[in-house]
């Protein structure tokens, strides 16, 4: 069974852990943000924090597309889903995200035709099979997911399917990271870059981090050893005074990314002038909408969505957690009014949200008591 589980090999992980411990400057603090929700999940699920010295602090970033979606966009999706002629399709991630008057799962229980799909191509197939109905796909996600929406729209156009449209909520990773770096709230030393976003966009878009802000970045995979190695690479950079973009996830990320995917995205999408992010406010050129060539498949135009803005619940501190200013348990409603069963904020909905990951896998520190000492 050559290679099996090598990226979960405990001996290698311990060796990397020891090397990090030997390299860290005991007088220094290393504050590293993992941008991606998938990384947050791996860190908690596998107890990575326990393998790192106290000087290394991991801060969770805004890289969960469900978590950063403002409530108004959820409400607008629900308004489309409630139309009798519509079959509304979305990824499972979206079903429990709270809007101001409920979530898609509740609307479905009341009779709306809402179907969970695994791929936007499944939504297109539903449109093909139901020519007398209007099929809408609720598109969310960063650059990992945008190519699948782009490809689906290209196929819809090629096949002349007119009863299909996309409500586009795709966002891009670089502008929110730049916004965080501009934020006076937060002092970060380095970044762990998202692995599969980088499979699409490559490593070049992160070069502004060292160039403009003097912060190193390592693009990382999603297994425990991937993250440990990435922390090691960042600690080495910081100790040696280097500041550059490095690629730990070479088995899946090329420096230039996937050019065909980028080409499909540039044909189908264009940048919005600005987009609202939960907790971060409006960020310029941080999201995608359908280009003029694809306007006839744009659900936003087909249903004239009004651009609703809804304030988050007052008790909810998702914004501070998203920016890394608060740790999840420091939120006023964490684990009390807001739980994975009854989420108040989006960070508790997605299993990759920082609060849900912390709730499910986070460990509390207990005073150690030697057996027989009492």
């Amino acid at each position: 069974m050559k290679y099996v589980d090598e990226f979960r090999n405990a001996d290698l992980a311990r060796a990397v852990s020891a090397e990090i411990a030997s390299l860290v400057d005991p007088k220094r603090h290393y504050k590293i943000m993992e941008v991606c929700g998938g990384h947050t999940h791996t860190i908690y699920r596998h107890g990575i924090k326990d393998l790192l010295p106290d000087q290394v602090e991991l801060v969770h970033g805004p890289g969960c597309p469900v978590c950063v979606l403002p409530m108004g966009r959820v409400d607008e999706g629900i308004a489309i889903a409630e139309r009798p002629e519509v079959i509304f399709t979305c990824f499972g991630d979206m079903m429990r995200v709270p809007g101001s008057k409920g979530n898609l799962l509740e609307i479905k229980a009341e009779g709306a035709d809402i179907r969970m799909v695994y791929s936007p191509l499944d939504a297109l197939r539903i449109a093909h099979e139901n020519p007398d109905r209007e099929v809408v796909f609720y598109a969310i996600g960063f650059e990992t997911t945008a190519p699948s929406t782009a490809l689906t729209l290209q196929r819809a156009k090629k096949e002349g399917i007119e009863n299909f449209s996309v409500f586009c909520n795709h966002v891009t990773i670089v502008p929110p990271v730049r916004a965080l770096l501009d934020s006076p709230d937060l002092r970060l030393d380095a970044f762990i870059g998202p692995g599969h976003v980088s499979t699409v966009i490559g490593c070049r878009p992160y070069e502004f981090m060292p160039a403009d802000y003097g912060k190193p970045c390592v693009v990382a995979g999603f297994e425990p050893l991937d993250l440990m190695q990435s922390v090691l690479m960042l600690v080495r950079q910081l100790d040696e005074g280097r500041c550059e973009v490095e690629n730990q996830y070479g088995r899946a990320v090329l420096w230039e990314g996937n050019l065909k995917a980028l080409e499909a995205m540039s044909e189908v999408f264009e940048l919005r002038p600005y987009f609202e992010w939960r907790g971060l406010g409006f960020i310029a050129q941080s999201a995608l909408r359908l280009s003029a060539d694809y306007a006839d498949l744009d659900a936003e135009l087909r249903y004239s969505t009004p651009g609703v803005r809804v304030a988050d619940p007052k008790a909810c501190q998702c914004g501070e957690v998203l920016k890394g200013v608060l740790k999840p348990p420091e939120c006023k409603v964490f684990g009390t009014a807001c739980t994975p069963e009854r989420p108040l904020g989006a960070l508790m909905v997605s299993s990759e949200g920082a609060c849900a990951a912390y709730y499910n896998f986070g460990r509390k520190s207990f005073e150690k008591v030697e057996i027989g000492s009492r």
Partner: protein
Amino acid sequence: MKDDLTLLGNCTLDHDGCVVCSDAGIPVRVLSIDGDDALCEDSAGNQTEIAVELVAPVTQGEIMLTHGGVAIGKIEAENLTPER
């Protein structure tokens, strides 16, 4: 053959997390090709059709990363072991 796929992580096509939020990239092997789609298999033996336009051309036996039913990348075989 399937064991090679676990090098790329333990994520499979029946991944029960949030596909989008977890930035999931599922490693699969190409079994057969039919136009712009390919029948693929993951490390658990699950099989499904994957759209391959964005990584074309593909050949039987190649390993790809898929997300939301679409192949988004190929695997660089020379980088398959952890480095120190």
